[in-house]
């Protein structure tokens, strides 16, 4: 019977030949590519040599048993993301529970029921594909460390309060630019521009968590707490301005439109967490600090300064960053006036 699911590359580990043949043939019949190993050592060798999508692991084996293989895999950063389904006889239920507690993905009783086999294997492969996709997504939006941490701690959709610096940036008069030129040029401009801005943000430990049109939102100090996130945010902003200079030189050389941007940063308590569904989630932040950062960014045009920050952000900077006070400002939706500071680009 053919499966509607995408095939995977599977490793069947069992010291018993009958079990190996049975599992391997069943899975091959489902369209998967299957490799087998007779004991734990052989399994680890194969796992280290090839990139498998899933392992079916027997518990009872001579030399190195299923536990030891499972533990070794979970401790190895290169192997710990491969889902492992334990296969065992019914009377080994205690061992199975232990394995699942340790971190095994699932289990199957032997003799294996073909329908359950197909269902569990496909579900595990699907979950792995989602995790792989999420990792890829995170790596484009955040540093490797953040992506790893997020994957390690899992995707609980619950939120929490964190102290973080929030940045908003957008391109001035972008609508006008878009109206004046070819749509292909506009999209190319945006892509080149975002590539540079991402570099500056991610390089300063930030995470880009929203893109909307020509605007972006980034967060510093969350999801993983980092001291110095205020300075990281401002250094990212300075680097963005620096990269933009080079970008505009190139644009001018090609007789293309040059752009100006505004960046607003505010620091404080934000509610951060994953929002969305199990299948499509994004790390987002909401709260007063986020609104304030957006308002400050809007104000850059009127203030005629490219980088504006709030007081709390300005208090977290080292001396080499030059800051000019612009005095208190009353923003829409805020009861109290906010002291605003302009950061001087290098």
């Amino acid at each position, binding site marked *: 019977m053919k499966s509607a699911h995408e095939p995977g590359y599977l490793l069947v580990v069992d*010291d018993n*030949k009958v079990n190996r043949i049975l599992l391997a*043939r069943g899975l091959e*019949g489902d369209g998967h590519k299957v490799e087998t190993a007779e004991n734990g050592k052989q399994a680890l060798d194969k796992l280290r040599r090839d990139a498998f999508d899933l392992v079916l692991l027997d518990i009872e084996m001579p030399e190195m048993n299923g536990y030891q293989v499972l533990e070794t895999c979970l401790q190895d950063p290169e192997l710990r993301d491969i889902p492992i389904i334990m296969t065992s*006889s019914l009377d080994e239920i205690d061992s199975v529970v232990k394995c699942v507690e340790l971190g095994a993905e699932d289990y199957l009783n032997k*003799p294996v029921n073909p329908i359950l086999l197909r269902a569990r294997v496909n579900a595990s492969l699907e979950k792995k594909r989602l995790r792989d996709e999420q990792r890829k997504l995170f790596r484009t939006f955040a540093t490797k460390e953040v992506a790893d941490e997020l994957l390690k701690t899992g995707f609980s959709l619950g939120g929490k309060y964190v102290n973080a610096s929030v940045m908003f940036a957008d391109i001035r008069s972008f609508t006008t630019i878009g109206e004046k030129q070819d749509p292909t040029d506009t999209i190319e401009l945006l892509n080149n521009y975002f590539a540079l801005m991402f570099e500056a943000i991610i390089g300063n430990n930030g995470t880009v968590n929203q893109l909307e049109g020509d605007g972006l939102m980034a967060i510093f100090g969350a999801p993983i707490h980092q001291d110095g996130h205020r300075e990281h945010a401002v250094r990212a902003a300075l680097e963005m301005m620096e990269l933009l200079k080079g970008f505009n030189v190139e644009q001018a050389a090609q007789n293309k439109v040059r752009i100006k941007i505004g960046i607003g940063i505010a620091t404080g308590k934000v509610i951060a967490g994953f929002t969305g569904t199990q299948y499509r989630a994004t790390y987002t932040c909401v709260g007063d600090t986020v609104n304030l950062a957006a308002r400050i960014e809007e104000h850059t045009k009127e203030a005629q300064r490219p980088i504006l920050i709030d007081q709390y952000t300005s208090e977290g900077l080292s001396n080499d960053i030059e800051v000019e006070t612009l005095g208190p400002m009353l923003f829409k939706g805020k009861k109290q006036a906010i002291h605003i500071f302009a950061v001087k680009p290098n």
Partner: protein
Amino acid sequence: MSIINRVTFNELKQMSGADFINELIDAFLDDAPDMIQNMHTALDTKDVESFRRNAHSLKSNANTFGATELGVLAKELEFMAKENNLEIGNRLEVLNETFGKVAEELKGMRI
């Protein structure tokens, strides 16, 4: 108790496909005598762990083919070994005889 439970065997045939049932039977008929031999050796050397593991494998395979009686005998020996008890009387001989019957019947069930 039947030597081979036909319902279980037919399910197995369905799962593995008719093409592979012969391969499976051959693998079992190849491996099982080794397991029984290993149990004899383990008994002589008082290697409880090896005895238990081989009994476990034999039980697992017996159940896969629907060899119910053989499965029960192997399971009993596995559990005795788990309790560190190798005073098994003539149970291994009984198991060996039963396997002989299972082997005969399985040979006739090859396609």
